[in-house]
């Protein structure tokens, strides 16, 4: 069985599955249950500065998007940072770390944007024996109205400044948690690196309104008829998270900066994808909140089996494997010509490919009176929509035309790799050689 043990910034954990800073990691009770279930580490729910604790709303904190059979696809929350006293959290962190020395315990922190506040809290966290800190520059709701969370994460200069303060005032590794509510994720990541942060973690939740009640006209979740902008997470956000992780992983300015991947990780497969795009480990929240802590067992067995199959001895063998394959559009091979192909034995004759292609695409699928669907190679642009809407897996596949073949749609002969930069239609094209 593959060895899943990881060392992230020198923080060891028996597997790369950590629980993200969120409700599941708010208390000793939950965290002990998580460790008993097999989680490799936790990022303790965000601590605020000393004094009267934060208060939360007393109505619903979550809104949801469901698929069929109420399968939870996306969750939104308006919960703030921990609402328990700082000293209680610190005492519990210390007790848990003492009892689970082999697990990672990182503490999330969010205090006002002045050096004194950070300088005051860091030693208190350090004293618990925690393995590191994560700076919460991500929460899009509530705290951001008070100049914290995403309000910091949206200003690269602030990120750099606070990261520098933290590095100056603690010996613990510093992870900066990034907000996705920004146009280009590379800027805050670069700022974190410039400030000396040891790693970034992303994504935090995405600003969202999950739904509107069409009777009361209140956004959901509704607090006395009003709603606010919450943070969206769960399976629905995974593609956005993967994209941002990849952007940072392949940015020359941040290449090599350790990344903790977060955002919709629900299965071992999701986790493996984050790792392949450059994350050194993953953090999970919504999946645990949906199904409970035991899901980590599936993540462990699944990743382990996959690594065995691929012959990966350690998680590091997988980390970043897909990064070189993320490129700019302009470098995609325009001589990679494919055509959709329908397997008539697998086809169940629903006609969804036909409707999609005929109504919304390129009129490249023919339908016979007895419902046989065939691809018209001379029309097919290989967009893949038919593959995506077909309800039968592997019924429609894309067949690559070999070099030297003639594309019946364009009449052009398939040649060697060639991209937009050298394409004759590109006014900026550079001659090859």
């Amino acid at each position: 069985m593959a060895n899943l043990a990881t060392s992230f910034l020198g923080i060891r954990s028996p597997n790369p599955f950590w629980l993200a800073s969120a409700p599941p990691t708010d208390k000793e009770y939950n965290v002990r249950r998580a460790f008993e279930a097999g989680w490799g580490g936790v990022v303790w729910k965000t601590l605020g500065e000393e004094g009267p604790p934060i208060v939360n709303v007393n109505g619903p904190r979550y809104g949801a998007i469901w698929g069929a059979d109420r399968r939870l696809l996306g969750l939104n929350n308006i919960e703030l940072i921990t609402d328990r006293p700082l000293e209680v959290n610190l005492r519990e962190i210390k007790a848990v770390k003492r009892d689970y020395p082999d697990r990672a315990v990182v503490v999330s922190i969010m205090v006002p944007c002045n050096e004194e506040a950070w300088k005051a809290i860091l030693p208190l966290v350090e004293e618990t024996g925690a393995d590191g800190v994560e700076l919460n520059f991500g929460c899009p709701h509530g705290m951001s109205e008070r100049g914290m969370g995403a309000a910091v994460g949206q200003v690269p200069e602030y990120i750099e400044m606070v990261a520098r303060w933290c590095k100056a005032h603690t010996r613990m590794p510093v992870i900066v948690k990034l907000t996705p509510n920004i146009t280009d994720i590379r800027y805050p990541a670069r700022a974190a690196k410039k400030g000396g942060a040891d790693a970034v973690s992303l994504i935090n939740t995405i600003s969202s309104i999950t739904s509107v009640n069409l009777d009361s006209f209140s956004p959901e979740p509704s607090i006395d008829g009003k709603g606010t902008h919450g943070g969206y997470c769960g399976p629905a956000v995974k593609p956005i998270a993967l994209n941002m992780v990849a952007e940072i992983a392949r940015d020359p300015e941040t290449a090599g900066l350790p990344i903790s991947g977060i955002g919709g990780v629900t299965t071992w497969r999701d986790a493996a994808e984050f790792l392949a795009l450059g994350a050194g480990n993953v953090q999970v929240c919504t999946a645990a909140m949906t199904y409970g802590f035991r899901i980590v067992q599936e993540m462990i067995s699944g990743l382990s089996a996959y690594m065995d199959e691929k012959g990966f001895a350690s998680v590091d063998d997988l980390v970043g494997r897909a990064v070189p394959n993320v490129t700019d559009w302009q470098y995609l091979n325009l001589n990679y010509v494919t055509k959709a192909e329908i397997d008539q034995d697998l086809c169940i004759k629903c006609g969804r490919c036909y409707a999609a292609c005929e109504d919304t695409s390129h009129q490249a699928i023919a339908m016979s009176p007895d419902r046989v669907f065939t691809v018209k190679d001379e029309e097919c642009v290989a967009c893949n929509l038919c593959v995506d809407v077909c309800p039968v897996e592997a019924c429609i596949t894309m067949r690559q035309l070999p070099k030297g073949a003639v594309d019946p749609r364009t009449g052009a002969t398939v040649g060697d790799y060639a991209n937009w930069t050298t394409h004759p239609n590109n006014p900026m094209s550079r001659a090859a050689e």
Partner: protein
Amino acid sequence: MTNSPLTPGVAPGRLPAETLAANFSDKAPAYDPHEAMVAADRCYFCHDAPCITACPTTIDIPLFIRQIATGTPEAAGRTIFEQNILGGMCARVCPTENLCEGACVREAAEGKPVEIGRLQRFATDSLMAQGGHPFARAPETGKRVAVVGAGPAGLAAAHRLAMKGHAVTVFEARGKAGGLNEFGIAAYKSPDGFAQDEVDWLLSIGGITVETGKSLGAGLTLDGLRADHDAVLLAVGLAGVNALAAEGEDVDGVRDAVDFIAELRQAGDKAALPIGRDVVVIGGGMTAIDAGVQSKLLGAENVTIVYRRGPAAMGASRREQDLATSKGVRIVHNAAPVRVIGNGTVREIEFAYTSPTPQGLALLDETFRLKADQVFKAIGQVLDGAPEALARDGRKIAVTGAGRTSLPGVWAAGDCAAGGDDLTVTAVAEGRDAAEDIHATLMAG
């Protein structure tokens, strides 16, 4: 209780009242809303969907299922009723495995079609439970149309004609409207008076008068109807019953399955219905299954359905055959009755095995006997009492186009008209289409 399934002869009350109540409760209970959402989500919203093509009334099935899936089952109900005003009953009695569900691409994909019948019931029940009526009549046209027969074809036609603004009079031989929906299907397919509720709901569109106890030959003549109305639609069904052609069949205990089924449907107290300890049903259609299963549900110890051909030739669908055997009914294939034995009352019935030949079925020499306190004949119904003036096609009224008979101004629809497959849903389609043709004809002239 004094009687049991072992009580000899024909006896009532073989089962306790609570067992009878359970036996005759809803065969396929209604979906609750969540079940309906999950079932609806399985629909692929096929292009030019095969289920629509397979539906005799051409209901836009993917659309109504999508309407359920998006939380508007009443809109789904309207989509159904626009094509099939008896969509509620059809949801309960259609052999969907041979129609929409048989054509469902998920049947091809995984052997488990979208449960269209149950979804249709959810939608139609939802809209009917809302109260009121979803359709309004067009302004009165001043035209009068007579519909003879208040079964599915006649009711569907009457509704469509009334909606178009015509004044409709429906003449019904029996004491109440509904036809086979009310008298001819198993009780567990339409419990709790659904058939009458549906008739009342259908008639609530207005413009329809129902006169019961009247039929051609019993108070009505075709000439009289033609003289008093602008158009006449015959939807008289098949009132006659085929004979067994077995020696000695005219003894007590041998009767038509349709009469037994009608009696059972109208019975207030099922415990009062006498049923044999040993029951034999002869035939292979839905009627045979309904009679056999209900005999068993009433407490008969042994029920045997005997059909002269093999399983594939049975008129009853595979699902219906499975239902019968699951209830403990035995189905014997390839045997035909040759002799009813009994002195004044049936005691046994003798069958000969059959073998198909190019000339038809041949009776083999080998015979067997079944004990029988009751024999139900379910070997098909025939047209009875239709006016001689109408041309025939085989044993039914000949029609062209949407139910036009050989006489101008006279249409025919449902089981009495040639063509079609004698299903409720086909009758509805024929009634509806004849009504449209009548409307077009009346308004053109």
